């Protein structure tokens, strides 16, 4: 018998939500009424007052043995999409087709009844999935061993820490041989040892033909686990067959669109006029240098000025670099009359991040500011690199044994 390889098929699915709770409840009553009269949910796709599309016209499919990484900013509809796939809520438009048994780990400790013990929850979970008691009993020891919390297995799940609940949740989900597994931002809670085991287990499941959808804000997790990436953003989605492209597109979302305007807080004083400023491009490759040239006209001699340079990135690294010319043991004097000053920041290694280069020039003693510009910059990313910084590196095979040739 030929079994179709596509386990999850989502076609043109949309979902709307309401911003106001009172109205939302009333719409719920209306929906209830139309549902009971056998009408279509979500009407003909028109939005009611204060409603908005949480998910719009989303189409994708996941095949056997494939892991789809689902990424996007908060509020993009990732969890909503998973809840629709899991059948918890109905789509307002479109069609979802699921082939096979599904296990969903949505939010912490989900899938568990807090008052039942870990042991009871394992059996209940299995019975809901349609796995027989006998089969669970056979796998019970494996599940407990994988979770790594055998001493708590007879305690109610409500007494578990969030990490313990996730461990058990993943252990159950992974050992009941689901054909489809949904994982929503839960693996991040486990410690590193457990995450490594999850990774191996997910690999095993993939080899066994399980289709997995993985939601995470951790781009490292995403790029390690996924075979494809779907980027959800408010009002749309994009699918990337190359995971690192998706990750880069995701990061670019946070670099801001209007971030090209230079903030010119101080541009010269009556005594120190700025005639012209030239600087490097605001979009650069990792490893590029940033240069700024200022033509000035000084009414008097400015001895021992201080040039303060800051580089901020909007990724996890935060304030990345700050130094003045003094850090380099340089003394700068602006002589009277016209002159040209140049400053150069070498080999900036930010990877796939937005940021800001601020240059401030102070008179000696920091009493008066002569110049202060804040220049938004963007650093492009490299494929197959998700870190905040990119270094030059080399990879070489120093020596190799000649492989035996097969006869």
């Amino acid at each position, binding site marked *: *018998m030929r*079994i179709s390889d596509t*386990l999850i098929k989502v076609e043109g699915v949309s979902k709307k*939500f*309401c911003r106001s*709770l009172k109205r*939302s*409840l009333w*719409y*719920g*009553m209306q*929906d*209830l009424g*139309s*549902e*009971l*009269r*056998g*009408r*279509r*949910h*979500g009407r003909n796709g028109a939005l009611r007052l204060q409603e908005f599309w949480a998910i719009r016209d989303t189409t994708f499919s996941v095949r056997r043995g494939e892991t789809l990484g689902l990424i996007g900013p908060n509020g993009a509809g990732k969890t909503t999409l998973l809840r*629709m*796939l*899991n*059948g*918890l*809520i*109905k*789509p*307002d*438009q*479109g*069609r*979802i*087709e*699921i*082939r*096979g*048994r*599904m296990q*969903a780990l*949505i*939010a912490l400790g*989900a*899938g568990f*009844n*807090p*008052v*039942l013990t870990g042991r*009871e929850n394992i*059996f*209940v979970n299995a*019975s*809901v999935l*349609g796995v027989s*008691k006998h089969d669970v009993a056979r796998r019970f020891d494996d599940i407990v061993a994988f979770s790594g919390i055998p001493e708590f297995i007879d305690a109610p799940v409500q007494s578990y820490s969030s990490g313990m609940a996730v461990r058990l949740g993943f252990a159950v989900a992974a050992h009941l041989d689901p*054909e489809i597994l949904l994982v929503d931002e839960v693996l991040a809670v486990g410690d590193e040892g457990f995450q490594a085991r999850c990774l191996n287990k997910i690999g095993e499941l993939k080899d066994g033909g399980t289709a997995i959808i993985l939601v995470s804000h951790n781009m490292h997790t995403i790029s390690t686990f996924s075979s494809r990436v779907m980027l959800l953003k408010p009002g749309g989605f994009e699918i990337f067959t190359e995971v690192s492209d998706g990750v880069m597109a995701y990061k670019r979302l946070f670099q801001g669109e209007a971030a090209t305007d230079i903030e010119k807080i101080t541009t010269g004083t009556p005594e120190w006029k700025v005639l012209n400023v030239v600087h490097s491009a605001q979009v650069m490759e990792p490893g590029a240098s940033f240069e700024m040239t200022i033509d000035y006209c000084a009414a008097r001699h400015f001895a021992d000025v201080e040039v303060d340079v800051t580089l901020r990135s909007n990724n996890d690294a935060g304030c990345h670099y700050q130094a003045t010319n003094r850090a380099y043991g340089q003394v700068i004097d602006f002589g009277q009359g016209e002159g040209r000053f140049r400053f150069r920041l070498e080999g900036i290694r930010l990877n796939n991040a937005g940021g800001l280069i601020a240059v401030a020039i102070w008179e000696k003693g920091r009493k008066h500011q002569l110049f202060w510009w804040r220049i938004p910059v963007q650093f492009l990313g490299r494929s197959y690199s998700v870190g905040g910084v990119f270094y030059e590196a080399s990879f070489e095979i120093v020596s190799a044994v000649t492989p035996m040739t097969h006869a």
Partner: protein
Amino acid sequence: MSEPRITVYTPDSSLARPATMVRDMFRDLWAGRELAWRLAVRDISAQYRQAFLGIVWAFLLPLANTVTWIFLSGTGVVSVGETPIPYPVYVFTGTMLWAILMDAMNAPLQQTTAAKAMLAKLNFPREAILLSGIYQTLFNGVIKIALLLAALLFLGINPGWGLLLFPLGVLSLILMGTAVGLLITPVGMLYTDIGKALPLLMQFLMYLTPVVFPLPKEGIASTLFHLNPMTPVILTTRDWLTGMTPAYFGYFLAVNAVAFLLLLAVWIAYRLAMPILIERMSA
């Protein structure tokens, strides 16, 4: 390898395909039995573990009600008409049976509300919640009935062979309670007003049912008592328990048939409502 189960989610109402819907309903009811049983066992043991008086709570309220009414009628504050059996027996059996009905009626909304968090995150047969409520009502009912029987024997009432039919009466109380309780659950999940208004309404309804008063012989009260579908159920069940011949057996059967159909209808409504309720609960 067998063909995997295919699940399709669309905006269409499942009423569009009744055959699939009914098959799914019974499949889920069957799949949920294990969960229902475990939930019920847990809830019952938690309920009695956390309460000092434990099992006494199952019958304390109807007992207090009985004492009140025996006092009111004994001192002549309220004049209660002639009852076919001694008044204390009449009012005690009445309030106990009414309490079972109330338990059954409250269960669906209570259980569903308590399971909100689980419903929002986990796809499991929703029937398990209802079934668990019924199990709990049955358990509490058995305690009440045991006490009731002990009291009857003590008071020298011999139920006779009618006792064999008595469980049917109890089941019909639960059937009726569950059907009505389930009817209000979808709206009650959205608006808490429903849960608050129900006890108020039922208090009023109790006095229109021969629980503490005998059936009035004439007047508007008599019409209201007869129109009330709870009347034949309470009367017949009590008659079986106290060794009398049921006077309204036909009416009893008719009410049960209607309650059964109502239960099926509201079960469907409950299933259809669930995704909508979950959506609004988490909104």
